């Protein structure tokens, strides 16, 4: 399931949402252009669900049967989610006779390798301003890192 949030990099073509109707229209356009086949749920204009789950632009959560958080990642890696689900479901399903599974929590760093060409194409889809603003943000991040 996909939750459509605010536009992370608004531009001239896909702007920030000013109304709920804008947001619904952008979500429909996203599905039309990317072919997302999963259900898309659209958050409200204030981002109520996005705020409750932590505001990152492309994060993934797995909620276990019954409503407990099983996994949260501040960036989406389909391979990582799949590997987690395989382990999680196997551990819940199969365990040595006479034992019961006891949950524990981990926190770990992962690496990703952004496809800059593809990302720049997505920024351009939103508009040239989105590209320019991302470049300015990169300068701000470099400045932060150096101080």
């Amino acid at each position, binding site marked *: 399931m996909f939750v*459509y949030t605010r536009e992370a*990099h608004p531009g001239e073509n896909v702007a920030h949402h000013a109304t709920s109707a804008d947001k619904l229209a952008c979500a429909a356009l996203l599905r039309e252009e990317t072919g997302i086949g999963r259900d898309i749920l659209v958050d409200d204009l204030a981002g109520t669900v996005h705020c409750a789950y932590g505001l990152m632009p492309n994060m993934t959560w797995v909620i276990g049967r019954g409503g407990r*958080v099983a996994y949260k990642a501040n960036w989406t890696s389909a391979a990582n989610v799949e590997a987690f689900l395989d382990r999680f479901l196997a551990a819940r399903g199969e365990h040595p006779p006479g034992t019961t599974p006891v949950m524990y929590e981990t926190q770990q760093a992962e690496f990703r390798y952004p496809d800059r060409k593809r990302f720049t194409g997505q920024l351009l889809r*939103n508009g040239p301003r989105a590209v320019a603003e991302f470049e300015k943000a990169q300068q701000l991040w470099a400045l932060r890192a150096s101080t």
Partner: protein
Amino acid sequence: MGEADRDSTAYYNYPRFDDYVAEGGDVADEAAFWASPRAGQRAPDYRLPRLGDDVQVRLSELWRFKPLVMEFGSFT
């Protein structure tokens, strides 16, 4: 945008990404992620409209019988 506006709908839907970063919005977002429910804690439950048919879907109905994968995103 300003400190007083940080909880507002207008602040959430910022029009310029560079201004948002300059004001530390991205840092606050990262902090919000780590302050959100941890593994093992109960997930927040909401009702959201499904694109296409506008049916109101309750998240707890989706995770009632099997795990739910929730990806958040936009065009970028």
